[in-house]
């Protein structure tokens, strides 16, 4: 914490951020214990007992001579809805609940830290690397908590919180800078819109990526199970067994990715409008523009992959993962090491 007066608003903000990081770390531990416990359960009764009630609306007969309209995904909604469990009907997993509660607590610290940083700086708190990380991770947690109200995605808690701790902790250690006034090029309404929407898209891509990773693991298990299905009487345990099928996970991941893609498209357009005001051209293949474009094309590829026979499934999941890795690369490596017009990291 280089030379910040601990009693200044900025100092308090930093303290809150560190408290949030500590709380998130505990949440991460809780979610990990939850995963370990779920993995050692002998069966999946807790999920099964709720399923029939939830899928009652759909009878899942294979679809027939309606090929020009139907799709295989359409036959699945009931399966995906297995995750769409209202909080009160969810299995009462102690450690998952502790993890969620700690996440909420950490989020409150985190939000307070971010808001006070904004007040200290007298502007939106997303104008340099440290602040991008602050707001970006806040949005990841916010979106995760919001989504948790709809879908039981607590199994993603360990992945997401682990990532948030790394990003936020890393930013607080390596990227922290004192509040300085904005540089002229950043004094624009587009800073508020463009950067915020980009962070929102990042949050959605992060969740999509987490689900895609789970999907790949699940697909591997499904293949293995199929191969060994002769020994059906061997008792089976495992975390993955308690999670939805890889198909259902894929559809879910897709839903997050397309919302993220929408926001990313907007980010691209807003960025071009801003560039046109700031640099006198709307597009110039500046490094940051290149990477924003690459990410956009990768996700367009992902959307196509999901609609292409032979690509749906494993390969499209990989594209979702690669897409998000590129987002992270764009945020870290490109910001710090690549030369370009977007030198607003605040680091020197």
């Amino acid at each position: 914490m280089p030379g910040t007066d601990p009693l200044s608003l900025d100092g308090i903000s930093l303290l809150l951020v560190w408290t949030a990081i500590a709380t998130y770390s505990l949440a991460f531990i809780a979610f990990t214990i939850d995963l370990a416990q779920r993995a050692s359960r002998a069966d999946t009764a807790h999920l099964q007992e709720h399923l029939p009630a939830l899928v009652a609306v759909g009878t899942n007969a294979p679809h027939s001579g309606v090929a020009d309209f139907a799709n295989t995904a359409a036959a699945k909604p009931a399966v995906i809805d297995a995750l769409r469990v209202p909080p009160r009907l969810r299995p009462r997993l102690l450690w998952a609940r502790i993890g969620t509660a700690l996440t909420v607590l950490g989020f409150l610290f985190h939000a307070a830290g971010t808001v006070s940083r904004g007040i200290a700086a007298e502007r939106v708190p997303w104008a340099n690397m440290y602040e991008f990380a602050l707001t970006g991770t806040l949005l990841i947690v916010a979106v995760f908590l919001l989504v948790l109200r709809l879908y039981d995605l607590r199994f993603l808690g360990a992945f997401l919180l682990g990532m948030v701790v790394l990003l936020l902790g890393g930013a607080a250690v390596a990227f922290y800078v004192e509040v300085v006034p904005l540089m002229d090029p950043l004094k624009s309404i587009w800073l508020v819109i463009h950067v915020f929407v980009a962070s929102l898209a990042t949050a959605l891509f992060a969740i999509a990526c987490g689900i895609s990773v789970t999907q790949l693991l699940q697909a591997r298990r499904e293949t293995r199970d199929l191969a060994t299905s002769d020994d059906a009487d061997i008792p089976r345990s495992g975390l993955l067994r308690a999670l939805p099928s890889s198909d259902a996970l894929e559809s879910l991941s897709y839903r997050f990715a397309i919302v993220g893609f929408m926001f990313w498209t907007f980010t691209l357009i807003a960025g071009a409008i801003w560039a046109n005001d700031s640099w006198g051209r709307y597009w110039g293949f500046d490094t940051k523009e290149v990477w924003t474009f690459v990410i956009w094309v990768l996700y367009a590829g992902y959307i196509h992959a999901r609609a292409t026979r032979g690509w749906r499934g494993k390969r499209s999941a990989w594209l979702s993962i690669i897409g998000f890795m590129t987002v992270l690369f764009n945020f870290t490596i490109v910001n710090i090491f690549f030369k370009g017009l977007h030198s607003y990291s605040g680091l020197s």
Partner: protein
Amino acid sequence: MSPPRSDTDSAVDPLRPPDHADTDRADIVAPSLGLVGWMRWAWRQLTSMRTALVLLLFLAIAAVPGSLFPQRSADPNGVIQWERNNPDVFPLADAVGLFDVYSSPWFSAIYLLLFASLIGCVIPRAKHHYTALRAQPPRTPARLARLPAYQETTLPVVGGNTDAMGLAVDLAERQMRRAGYRVHRYEGAGWASVSAERGYVRETGNLVFHVALVGVLTSVAVGTGFAYTGQRVVVEGTTFVNALSDYSSFNPGRFVDGTVLAPYSLTLDDFQVSYRLPGAPGAGQAGDFSADVTVRTPGDDDRAESVLVNYPITVDGDRVYLLGNGYAPTLSIRNSDGELVYSESQPFLPQDSAMTSLGIIKIPDGLPEQVGLVGFFYPTQGVLPSGAFTSIYPDVANPVLTLNVFSGDLGIDDGIPRSVYTLDVGGLTQLTGADSGLDSLELTPGGTADLPNGWGTITWEDDTEQVGEPVKRFASLQIQRDPSGVWVLVFSILALLGLFAGLFVPRRRLWVKARLMPDGVHVEYAGLARGEDPALSRAVSDFASRHSTAYTDLPNAAPRP
């Protein structure tokens, strides 16, 4: 009335490329028929989902080198630097286009193929969609129970109602119509049904999105031909006239010759900037740049405007941007007879964030030999441990100017244009500084120094009276006109709207089929979605409950007490 589409005739959805994941039939079949067959096969390959996907991934990968290597279009100096650092590899790297990635043949090939594929894909889909938009919802499938979302119920037949079945179907038809579905009735022996479809705008959106991408590309391709960008450095108190000869650099598009620029002029009255004071966080950071100009256009009164970062001004359709700024000390040079041979405010280009600035002065005539001066300007002079000067603060607090004098052939007379900001000292004799034996000339505002060899004097004219500080500032302006911008914006917004509709509007078919049974009216509800539709089951069950509730509330159907 147009005929209903049948769902059972074709297994392949003609709206989509044959290898779409949701179509039933397998791959594009191998060609069998001579040349035409091969060409058709090639075309189908090109317009397949797989090709589009692979080209998209290629496009993403091909764009990357442009961020690893400096690009001539964005960073020409970076290219020169790269060449200097890697003289051996440079010719090869340049030959394969690593410094012009986005206009290289391989990059162009990828996106042109992609767009060919896109057009080939979109046209048949658009045709088909046009027909679909006018067709009736399809015949009700025989076995609704096999559809992905399905529900059934038995409603009471009451009183003397003879047509409970018709009543239920009428009601469903009305409700669906109100919910925005297009409906059609189908009847058979002992059953009546209504078939409904909604969300055509999903496919419309998808098509609009893809077509809008073509629009963006076309606008860029055509529009930039009519665009131009020019740069000009303007010193406080001087005027820039919008004519080709007055630009320091000018990049016209293919269809612009620069002879018919809008006639206007800009005078830089004042350039303002503020710096963070020493001691504060971000000390020395510059901000609130403002180039205050007077704009003169023929037939109009003079206008005072300010060009700010992020806020260009518009003059006669040209956009004027503030790109940079710096100092322009006014220097006068007199020969040994005291005649003035040079007097100008020469812009010195900033070299670091504390505005240590480098300037070149060339005096071809009036002195015994041609003379070139390489000057450093320090707005707030400080001394490095090595003894060299540097600026330690960007504002004018302790301004000092040092100059090295060179003599010889400046190479001005050979007709090759040379930048006013560089001096090739290769063939020149250094008279002051370095190992010339004489110290560099050093000036403070208002001061005068002798040129070597008794050739005359150089004076730094103090400009405080005119601009309030000893040295004038300059603004570097960019003047730009790009008619493609507005089209690109329009198509981008169309693409965004299309994307929204294409991804999030559900396209659904819904059927309600009623049959009179001994114990009441047996009603089946079924739904089918095209594409991703997480809410299909809910839509069907919601409709079912809305329909059965409304049915029991009907005056004719309600059980009479």
